[in-house]
């Protein structure tokens, strides 16, 4: 199946200005959210910034990634503003070589998760609006200084989340027929096309994320911008269906990415994706407060930040180190490879489970609060004196919790299944004669994390901002 060859959607996506068409509504929505966040009601459930960011955007994002692909990066409003700014000033610098990896994104993701919990971003329209505004500014500054899509590839934490999650997506932007690429000499898909008369004028961009289509494997680093589709003179790039997570089972050289098993930064990002999912879900259930109070008493601390710091270190450092060290030690009894190479290689096998946990968590908020944007929109319109939307229907919420909880467990189970399949395929490749010996330690890690996720999501939810003594 090739999405670009489907009658209506395909035609729309092939249109030269399709991306802009998707970006404009999201840009307008972002502006609305910023304005309402700063000037609207200070209560999160009554504000568009908090409702759309933390309930609808995150939920829709993971569901679209599950059923299609990285279409949110395609419609990214930050890039639209950046593209507009680049009409006036063109960056001339390349992103520093030593920073061309995922370490900045790893740091920003950890910082983002920490700040989210510490300042209770979900409960503050003002901070949420500031965050959205800062995101626009950051994208603008980075990509005004550095060429290509440096912000998307090396900085944007949302982008990295999408890249990893899209390894599970059923769609991929890829070459239709590799034989056509063999005879292609222009390589427009990566170089782009320039005006033959004025070579400085770019008529069509090539891939700004340095993904050369014939050697591109999977969705990592692909923003679905479809520049390659527009650039290819042979109409040889499509959005093709594939087996979800299949790219995690191969360890070949990938254009613009390299070899997975040699990318410690990408493996760290993957582990953060997995353990961060647990941490983020943990912070929304009742037991977290008992743990935090116990920690605060134990350490004789009254401030939230150090307690939260200890919790982060435990979940993001100690827990993975212990679990993975045991798995690596057991694996080394069957394979003669360095511990680090095993750790990096098998880290990716946990990504499907991580995605399952994110999916369960975000879809819970999305589905249980599905219709809440309606009264918030009505209320925002009424504040401006527009009564045509009627009285806000505050009773509108979403699906019942019991229904959504069944879905949550289903998503986590699917994630576990994906992780087991990926680790088994890797084990088969590493130890063709006795794959089970290699598979079992990693299956054990995935099962422990699965059990932790199921336990977490079975706990009563407790939406709190006050952590200590509240």
């Amino acid at each position, binding site marked *: 199946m090739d999405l670009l060859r489907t009658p209506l959607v395909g035609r729309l996506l092939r249109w030269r200005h399709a991306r802009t068409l998707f970006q404009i509504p999201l840009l307008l929505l972002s502006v609305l959210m910023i304005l309402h966040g700063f000037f609207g009601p200070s*209560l*999160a*459930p*009554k*504000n568009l910034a*908090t*409702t759309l960011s*933390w*309930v609808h955007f995150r939920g829709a994002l993971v569901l679209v990634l599950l059923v299609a692909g990285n279409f949110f990066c395609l419609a990214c409003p930050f890039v639209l503003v950046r593209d507009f700014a680049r009409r006036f000033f063109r960056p001339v610098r390349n992103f520093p070589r030593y920073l061309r990896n995922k370490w900045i994104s790893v740091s920003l993701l950890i910082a983002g998760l920490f700040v989210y919990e510490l300042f*209770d971003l*979900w*409960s503050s329209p003002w901070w949420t609006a500031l965050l959205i505004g800062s995101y626009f500014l950051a994208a603008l500054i980075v990509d005004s200084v550095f060429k290509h899509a440096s912000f998307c590839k090396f900085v944007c934490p949302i982008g990295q989340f999408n890249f990893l999650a899209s390894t599970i997506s059923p769609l991929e932007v890829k070459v239709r027929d590799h034989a056509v690429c063999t005879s292609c000499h222009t390589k427009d898909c990566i170089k782009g096309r320039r005006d033959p008369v004025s070579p400085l004028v770019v008529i069509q961009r090539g891939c700004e994320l340095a993904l050369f289509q014939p050697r591109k494997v999977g969705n990592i680093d692909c923003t679905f911008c479809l520049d390659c589709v527009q650039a290819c003179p042979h109409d040889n790039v499509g959005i093709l269906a594939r087996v979800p997570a299949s790219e995690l089972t191969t360890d070949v050289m990938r254009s613009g990415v390299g070899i997975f098993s040699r990318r410690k930064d990408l493996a760290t990002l993957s582990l953060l994706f997995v353990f961060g999912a647990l941490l983020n879900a943990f912070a929304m259930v*009742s037991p977290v*407060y008992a743990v935090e109070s116990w920690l605060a008493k134990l350490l004789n601390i009254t401030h939230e930040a150090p307690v939260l710091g200890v919790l982060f270190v435990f979940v993001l450092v100690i827990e993975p180190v212990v679990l993975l060290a045991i798995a690596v030690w057991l694996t080394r009894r069957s394979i003669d490879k360095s511990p680090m190479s095993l750790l990096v290689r098998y880290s990716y096998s946990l990504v499907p489970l991580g995605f399952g946990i994110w999916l369960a968590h975000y879809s819970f*908020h*999305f589905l*249980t*609060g599905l219709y*809440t944007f309606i009264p*918030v929109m009505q209320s925002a319109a009424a504040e401006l004196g527009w009564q045509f939307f009627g009285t806000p229907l*505050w*009773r*509108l*919420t*979403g699906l019942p919790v019991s229904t959504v909880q069944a879905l949550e467990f289903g998503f986590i189970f699917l994630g576990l299944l994906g992780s087991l399949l990926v680790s088994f395929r890797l084990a088969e490749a590493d130890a063709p004669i006795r794959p089970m010996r290699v598979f079992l330690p990693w299956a054990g890690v995935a099962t422990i994390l699965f059990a932790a996720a199921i336990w977490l999501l079975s706990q*009563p*939810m*407790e*939406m*709190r*901002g*006050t952590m200590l003594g*509240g």
Partner: protein
Amino acid sequence: MIARKQSLLFVLFVMLLAFACQKTAKPPDITLQYEIVPQPPRVGTVIINLKLTDRNGTPVSGARVDLEGNMSHAGMSPVNREAKEIETGKYSGTLQLPMAGDWIVLVHITLSDGQKLQRQIEVSGVR
């Protein structure tokens, strides 16, 4: 031409000044004291007792008081209930809080003369 532009700017400035200096309706000077039962608050029925007094400390009687409980997280439906006057200037209402966490209760008050005001009560750490 320049003189016309200057005149226009002057008129706009005066209009802006006039608009900025408009008197806005002063909200009534009402003090709200409250008590939440049980303490610490728990999921389920929570009683909110309110006492309204004016600037002289006189109890405010005959007001309509509506309680609206909201969670600190978006995506949740508010819970609403009217608080009834049980004594002169004292009002009491119950809210059914369906989830643990931080709740913010908006108290919508309509005084007997029709004036409206709103106060906010934080009910943190509902278990």
